[in-house]
């Protein structure tokens, strides 16, 4: 145990990213502190909140919304000034927003990382798919992803793609009757209907039960078959990391050589605490991470922190079926 610092590493945020980082470090014998603005809420309470919610289409409604740890739909949280109402569904509690992420686990394809070279738009990534691939494998094992090892995930109807160095940890779930019919009807029209790799366990995995079709991936899997960050918050604690809840980080403190030497957090009771560490990981999500960096005036020599923010994009298709599904 290091005597000169409060911890080797302090992680801000107990979501999927922060908790996995904390777990990996704790396994290596590092002393780790995780700071979480929200609280630990057991799954059954979230499920009960959902059942009692009068607005079930609001995926944040079953989750805590405290004055010191708002979820992102709170009127006090995001002030929009432009024409687009940007209001992504972030949560603040142990485990973070993967409590309601629906668990799609697509990899990028090799060509996704060469947009400029191949398609003349955007920028190429500074690394190749092959360099990233081993980390995809580790992430898929950590999250317990089920997927097809034989389908062409580029949708072109070819062989297994993208390349994999290791099979998916679990086999895909069986196709629903709806999917079977879609595949059969759309295939002849030239559409390749493929399985979406996802973080729902199809067999017992890492303490999680297999999916039993509870029809509620969003906003909470009632049985925890779907991966959420609370899994690794728990693993990190079991590996020795210290999780401090009700701890809103508000300042990264710079030392003499501009390296970060300490972090300051405040609790809902008003208590201010300063903690020191050799390293700090800010994993507080796409809004809170730049916010903390900007208010601390750190890590922004590029002047790009907080810029180029992009929401989660999505497309949907709706069909009216001519047969019962």
């Amino acid at each position, binding site marked *: 145990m290091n005597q000169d610092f409060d911890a080797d590493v302090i992680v801000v945020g107990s979501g999927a990213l922060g908790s996995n980082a904390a777990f990996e470090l704790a396994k290596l014998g590092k002393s780790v502190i995780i700071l979480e603005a929200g609280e630990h809420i057991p799954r059954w309470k979230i499920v009960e909140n*959902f059942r009692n919610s*009068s*607005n079930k289409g609001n995926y944040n409604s079953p989750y805590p919304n405290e004055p010191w740890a708002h979820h992102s739909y709170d009127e006090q949280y995001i002030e929009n000034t432009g024409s687009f*109402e940007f209001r992504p*569904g972030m949560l603040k509690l142990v485990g973070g927003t993967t409590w309601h992420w629906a668990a799609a686990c697509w990899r990028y394809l090799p060509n996704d990382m060469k947009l400029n070279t191949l398609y003349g738009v955007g920028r190429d990534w500074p690394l190749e798919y092959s360099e990233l691939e081993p980390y995809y494998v580790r992430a898929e094992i950590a999250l317990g992803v089920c997927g097809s090892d034989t389908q062409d995930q580029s949708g072109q109807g070819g062989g297994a793609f993208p390349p994999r160095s290791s099979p998916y940890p679990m086999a895909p*779930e069986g196709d*629903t009757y709806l999917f079977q019919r879609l595949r059969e009807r759309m295939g002849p029209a030239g559409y390749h209907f493929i399985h979406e790799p996802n973080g729902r366990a*199809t*067999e017992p995995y890492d303490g999680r039960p297999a999916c039993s079709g509870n*029809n509620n991936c969003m906003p909470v899997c009632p049985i925890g078959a779907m991966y959420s960050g609370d899994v690794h918050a728990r693993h990190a604690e079991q590996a020795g990391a210290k999780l401090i809840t009700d701890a809103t980080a508000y300042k990264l403190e710079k030392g003499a050589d501009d390296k970060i030497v300490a972090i300051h957090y405040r609790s809902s009771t008003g208590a201010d605490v300063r903690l020191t560490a050799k390293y700090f990981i800010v994993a507080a999500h796409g809004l809170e991470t730049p916010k903390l960096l900007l208010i601390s005036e750190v890590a922004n020599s590029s002047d790009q922190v907080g810029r180029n923010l992009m929401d989660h994009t999505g497309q949907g298709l709706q069909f009216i079926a001519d047969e019962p599904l």
Partner: protein
Amino acid sequence: MITRRKLLYSGAALTGAGLFAPLWAGVALAQEVSSAARDDVESFRQLSMFLLERPSLDAALSLRILAQCTQNDPEFPQKMKALWSKVGQHHLRSVGQLSGSPFYRDPVIKDTTQKIVSAWYLGYTGTPVSLRATDGTRLVTFTGALAYQPTADATVIPTYSRGKTNYWVNPPATLAND
């Protein structure tokens, strides 16, 4: 054990005696119950059965919907009774006759009808506002929402389960009759 539902039910049964006194129930429950006048309770249930074309409806839920709609709009009992009396005056036999009748063009009549039907089917009152922490909605019932019934043979009510992994590969047993 006396559940909230049973208590409400007993309250509804005792409407004739006017026993809506908040004897030992919680404040919220007392408000819910006392806001519904006794003759309104039975009118509302009869009107609901007509609008939903059902021979019976849960009395506790009926009381709850009436109370919540009344809290949202103090004029609701009058509007509801006016609608019910129109139905009687015109000897309407079905919702189809109601929605096809000239007086259904009256926005108050239409809005009142839709509020009632919506509360029974969706299981809440009020209008949801998306991407906000709060709105004016209030829960009436989760599993009792009538919208779940038409697909209950094939689709499980969210959060519950009635099978094991991959049960969904089989077509619904009732497919042939759909």
